[in-house]
């Protein structure tokens, strides 16, 4: 039974690692579409030739905080993997990530509703 448990553990771990590696490679080579990741769209403007697209600082900050939070947590885990538990994270991290998401959603809502109103007033 012990050998079976080891086999299951290795199977799951290899699968997760292979999946993460595959998706990372496809993201870096462009096979997974990331067009417009840092651009928002303003409702009410013509869509031809991406005229309604704008460079979105709120997406940039969300990307930065997402990657920073991810790396921070991974380094916490790698510094002490033998503790038997996933490391707890400081309260400031969920607050920061939550705030970053709030800014992103506010920008998205503005582009959707107020951007549309601004266009009508022109």
């Amino acid at each position, binding site marked *: *039974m012990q050998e*079976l448990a080891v*086999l*299951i*553990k290795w*199977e*799951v*771990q290899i*699968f*997760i*690692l*292979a999946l*993460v590696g*595959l*998706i990372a490679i*496809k993201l870096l080579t462009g*096979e*997974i*579409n*990331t*067009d*417009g*990741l840092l*651009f928002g*769209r303003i*409702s009410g403007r013509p*869509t*031809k*030739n*991406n005229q309604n697209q704008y460079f979105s600082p709120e*997406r940039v900050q*969300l*990307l930065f905080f*997402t*990657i920073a*939070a*991810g790396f921070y*947590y*991974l380094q916490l*885990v*790698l510094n002490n*993997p*033998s*503790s*038997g*538990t*996933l*490391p*707890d*994270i400081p309260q400031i*991290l*969920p607050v920061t*990530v*939550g705030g970053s*998401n709030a800014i*992103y*959603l506010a920008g*998205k*809502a503005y582009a*959707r509703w107020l951007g549309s109103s601004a266009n009508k007033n022109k």
Partner: protein
Amino acid sequence: MYILTLAAGSAQQTDGSREILKLVAGYLFCGIAGIAGIIVLWKMANGEINLSRLVSEPNGDASMSRFQFLVFTFVIALSLFFVIFATNGFPVIPGTVLSLLGISSSSYLVSKGIQFSDPNGVQDRAVEVMITPAQATLHVGQTQQFKAEVPRKPDAALKWEVIHGYGKIDPARGLYTADLTQGPAAGAGAPPTPQFPLHATIQVTADEDPELVDLAVVTISA
């Protein structure tokens, strides 16, 4: 006494058989799961399972919420992998880690709600061709290289032509020359006394779809 011994022996044999059965079933399940995993990974690698829109919205744009969800899911999966590998046991997941996933999920849901409130957010964007530069100013005899992009069909074959005014353009490469003896307006030759500035309209069309068209304007000066 003899019967009791027989019964005990029989029970032990049954337990032993049950253990062997469990082991065989376990290895069989592992084998099937392993083969299924390899098949899924192989299909993802060669494109049969299409991951191109993994982080895209229905309209084709990449979504930051989906990307964040992907990043956090894999960070936690990798963390579990490292801890299980080190300790051989399933770890306790702190509430703060779950709250991080919860924030990402909620943000994704709200983002989806905002997106779906706009019809353009749920329809796949039409395939378009975009010509650059859209305008150019040249002297007689000068050349301008035009480029066209079809973001949703990068391999689309394109055809270039001058549909109005003066000049000629390579139909395959998009290299325009401000030649007053060429073009729809040239007719019998270059105008004897050109009234500058003159103009030319360049059109690019996708071979597979004649409705995919974009235009550029060239202003020709002396």
